[in-house]
């Protein structure tokens, strides 16, 4: 720790802190453009100038370390001033230079109202320009379908360049030319190739990089902001849903150090138009082979008739990736009351088993814990596609150095280097046997992280893979088993026990003709052909695979239209809030199930979401602790599982990062991204 006097106030700061951080700690506000906590220091905007006693010139506080300051002649702590006339004058000078070439087109700029330059110009700008010459104009660049560019507005802070190079790990953006002619661009105007590229829009302190799909849509002060969580993957990134009236207009990341820091994936951000398109806004009943619009009563009557005619053993329920804990709890309660044992929320063939303990299906070391790991083994997963934000965290750990990363599964560009150990179970068996250099590194690791993806679990020997992973990651006081789920609903479903009851069929068995009537709660990612001629009730939001197969469609609320609890892959209970009301006649899923239960004569014992939650919390108290990870209850039961590995490669279930759910498939923006990504793969293959 080092002592420092900031604006007359003596503070203790870490010696390696920058002056800017020290000033913030002392409560002083320091304006900045190029500096960002999560990126390397560039020191090129000069806006953060402060006065350091003894220095003949103002000092860029972001690039000056506290330990580099010299004490006074008698050993007094260094003195830093942030509010002196010199500082104000210096910053005004910097601002004037920045504005020389910045177009004053705020009225037509999408950044208006949330622009760092605009805000700071209010404090440090002067009311007139002394610059009589023409302003510099810069050609706009195409850098992808998600980011619109107005490069004349660029102040060359290079945050976007540093983000793509350091966090996203693709190095697509660069600054060509020099001096006044410096321009931010991709190579030959190609599109950026990162799943996190949308974040450069948030990073851009001016309106040079703005969201292309959101262009000219709304002003920030018109929007209602709702804090929520992202459900497009199992990471549970914190998001803010911005809506106006009944429409969700955009989704932005929210800070959550434990999960997503401040990034979100492009799928989470740009699913917005998919939430509005292809929506089911009224019930439908299949009459004579065609889906006909119907009233709720007609739809319920059709279901009641079928339920009455079908033995409970031939009824099943499958939940999809977007289902919240409340819906799963309600559906499970309804099915139990009907005497139905066939319920499942796991993908076909999945070996996840809640009876082995919560620790057997969680990302036990936690996402923030990735940074503590000293060896990382990835089994049957492509984290870049399955959890892009989590992959950025692994990359962050890799950049910090001294970590061995190994991969068993499909070789892919994960944005960091790894030892490729093989494609499938044989390589895992060899690793378990201690073969190879990586096995030694893993054995020597004190905090190994073993990430197991669905590609390795949804197999006949899935339980053995899990047990092998648990064994490889087990240390005293450290459970390195990290199950990386692909669906936001998965952990919540396992927590409420949405798995086959005694003698019940699992997803695979139901899809193999095990049922005559199936309730699909937003389940679109399963192979519906397996349902054969079964009567399908689809509760969901989009006219996707499930709705096409359905005999009765009950329109549900999309994730932004309901309040629901989700549990992310590390077991963190999170609350998604309602930003807008459901579309048309659509209702929140739990209330649909409640109403249906009434028609079926098995009325569920709750009349409101609050009552439902009270019942839920009574059955599983850990759901009440929002944003917390309940203790998984010691070691999992995987230790007792006999490891018998088959042969064969692990294949990640995610083929296309951009199209993993019905809302994403309905989105034009994500379709364009997907097409681009496919063409990139094609070019790479040629």
């Amino acid at each position, binding site marked *: 720790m080092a002592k420092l006097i900031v604006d007359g106030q003596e503070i203790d700061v870490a010696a390696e802190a920058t002056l800017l951080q020290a000033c913030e700690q002392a409560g002083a506000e320091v304006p900045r453009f190029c500096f960002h906590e999560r990126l390397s220091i560039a020191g090129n905007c000069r806006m953060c100038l402060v006065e350091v006693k003894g220095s003949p010139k103002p000092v860029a506080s972001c690039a000056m370390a506290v330990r580099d300051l010299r004490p006074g002649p008698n050993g007094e702590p260094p003195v830093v001033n942030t509010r002196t006339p010199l500082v104000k004058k210096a910053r005004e000078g910097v601002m004037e230079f920045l504005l020389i070439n910045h177009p004053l087109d705020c009225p037509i700029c999408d950044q208006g109202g949330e622009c760092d330059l605009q805000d700071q110009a209010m404090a440090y700008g002067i009311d007139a320009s002394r610059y009589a010459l023409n302003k510099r104009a810069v050609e706009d660049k195409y850098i992808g379908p998600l980011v619109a560019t107005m490069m004349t507005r660029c102040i060359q802070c290079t945050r976007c360049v540093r983000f793509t190079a350091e966090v996203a790990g693709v190095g697509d953006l660069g600054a060509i030319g*020099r001096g006044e*002619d410096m321009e931010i661009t991709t190579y030959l105007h190609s599109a950026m190739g990162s799943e996190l590229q949308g974040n450069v829009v948030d990073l851009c302190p001016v309106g040079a990089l703005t969201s292309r799909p959101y262009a000219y849509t709304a002003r920030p002060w018109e929007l209602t902001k709702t804090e929520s969580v992202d459900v497009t993957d199992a990471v549970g990134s914190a998001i803010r849903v911005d809506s106006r009236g009944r429409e969700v207009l955009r989704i932005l990341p929210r800070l959550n150090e434990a999960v997503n820091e401040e990034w979100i994936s492009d799928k989470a951000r740009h699913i917005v138009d998919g939430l509005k398109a292809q929506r089911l806004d009224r019930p439908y009943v299949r009459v004579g082979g065609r889906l006909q619009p119907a009233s709720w009563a007609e739809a319920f009557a059709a279901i009641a008739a079928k339920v009455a005619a079908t033995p409970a053993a031939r009824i099943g329920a499958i939940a999809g990736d977007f289902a919240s804990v409340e819906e799963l709890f309600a559906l499970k309660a309804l099915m139990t009351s009907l005497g139905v044992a066939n319920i499942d929320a796991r993908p076909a063939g999945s070996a996840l088993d809640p009876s082995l303990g919560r620790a057997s299906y969680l990302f036990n070391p936690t996402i923030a814990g990735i940074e503590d790991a000293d060896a990382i083994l990835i089994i049957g997963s492509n984290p870049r596609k399955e959890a892009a934000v989590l992959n950025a965290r692994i990359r962050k750990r890799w950049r910090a150095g001294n970590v061995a990363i190994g991969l068993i599964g499909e070789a892919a560009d994960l944005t960091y280097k790894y030892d490729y150990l093989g494609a499938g179970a044989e390589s895992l068996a060899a690793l378990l046997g201690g073969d190879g250099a990586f096995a030694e590194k893993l054995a020597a690791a004190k905090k190994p992280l073993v990430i197991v993806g669905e590609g390795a679990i949804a197999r006949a020997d899935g339980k053995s893979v899990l047990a092998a992973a648990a064994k490889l990651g087990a240390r005293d006081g450290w459970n390195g088993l990290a199950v990386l789920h692909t669906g936001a609903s998965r952990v919540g479903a396992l927590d409420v026990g949405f798995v086959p009851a005694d003698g019940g069929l699992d997803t695979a068995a139901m899809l193999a003709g095990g049922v005559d009537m199936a309730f699909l709660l937003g389940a679109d990612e399963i192979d519906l052909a397996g349902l054969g001629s079964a009567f399908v009730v689809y509760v969901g939001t989009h006219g996707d695979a499930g709705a096409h197969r359905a005999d009765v469609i009950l329109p549900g609320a999309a994730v932004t239209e309901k309040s629901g609890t989700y549990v992310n892959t590390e077991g963190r209970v999170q609350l998604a809030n309602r930003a807008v009301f459901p579309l048309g006649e659509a209702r929140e899923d739990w209330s649909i199930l409640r109403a249906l239960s009434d028609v079926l004569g098995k009325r569920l014992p709750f009349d409101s979401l609050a009552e439902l939650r009270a019942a839920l919390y009574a059955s599983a108290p850990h759901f009440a602790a929002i944003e917390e990870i309940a203790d998984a209850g010691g070691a999992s039961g995987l230790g007792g599982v006999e490891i018998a590995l088959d042969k064969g490669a692990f294949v990640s279930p995610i083929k296309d990062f951009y199209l993993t759910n019905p809302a994403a498939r309905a989105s034009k923006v994500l379709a364009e991204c997907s097409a681009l990504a496919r063409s990139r793969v094609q070019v790479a293959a040629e």
Partner: protein
Amino acid sequence: MAVRRLAPKEVQPASFAFTAENEAWAAATIAKYPAGREASAVIPFLMRAQDQEGWVSEPAIRFIAEKLGMNTIRVLEVATFYTQFQLAPIGTVAHVQVCGTTPCMLRGAEDIKHVCQNRIHHDPFHLSADGKFSWEEVECLGSCVNAPMVLIDRDTYEDLTPESFGQLLDAFERGETPKAGTQIDRPHGGPAGGETTLTEMLAGAGRPAGADDMIAANMAAQGVARGVDPSVLASASAQADVSHKPGAYTTLDGAWYTEGGKHPSGSVDPAPASVRRTG
């Protein structure tokens, strides 16, 4: 300086590859850097590619990026940052880099530029009609003593006048390789007409043994290079010795001034404070 962009697609070659000789050089160059730091070789590689083709083409940038395991944009950043890299084709015979910085400008670089504009192309970085020449204006190349000057390939051509520069371009056009360096009668940056100072030393006073022979050999070599008979040279140095007297000044162009700032021709010394005292 203007925005530097890659040349349009139409002029870009289809592909680029190092010659066998350059490949061997490339392997040796990469080996100079520690493993994982291959990207450090990007500037030498770009220079080599430019030496091979005359300019840095888009396929060359991709080739180098691949060779060094870099992102193409990183190589493009370097190529566009340094103005020394030509991003468009240059004249097949000569690419003239005219120094336009203050000393050269004061000594007539503008006239040299006009010659370029008239003979090659009105605008820099454009090929002449026959594709043989191109030109650009560059910043100081360090030959201020011999201003004005141009750089063609790796050779400087100094003390130019529009006429001598025109003859220089003629010679290039004929396929000759004109003598590099100063285009007037002076030894490098020395005075026109031969050495005028330190002639006592040349005469042998207080020098170490063997130095005389070296100087003589040097002077003879220079004399031969300038086409001067060695015997004439000896007598010239003797004359210089006579004219050398304390209190005399010499200017950069080799003209003599007497003490008090009077030029032999009667004009007043234009800049007595800036001249070098030789006495």
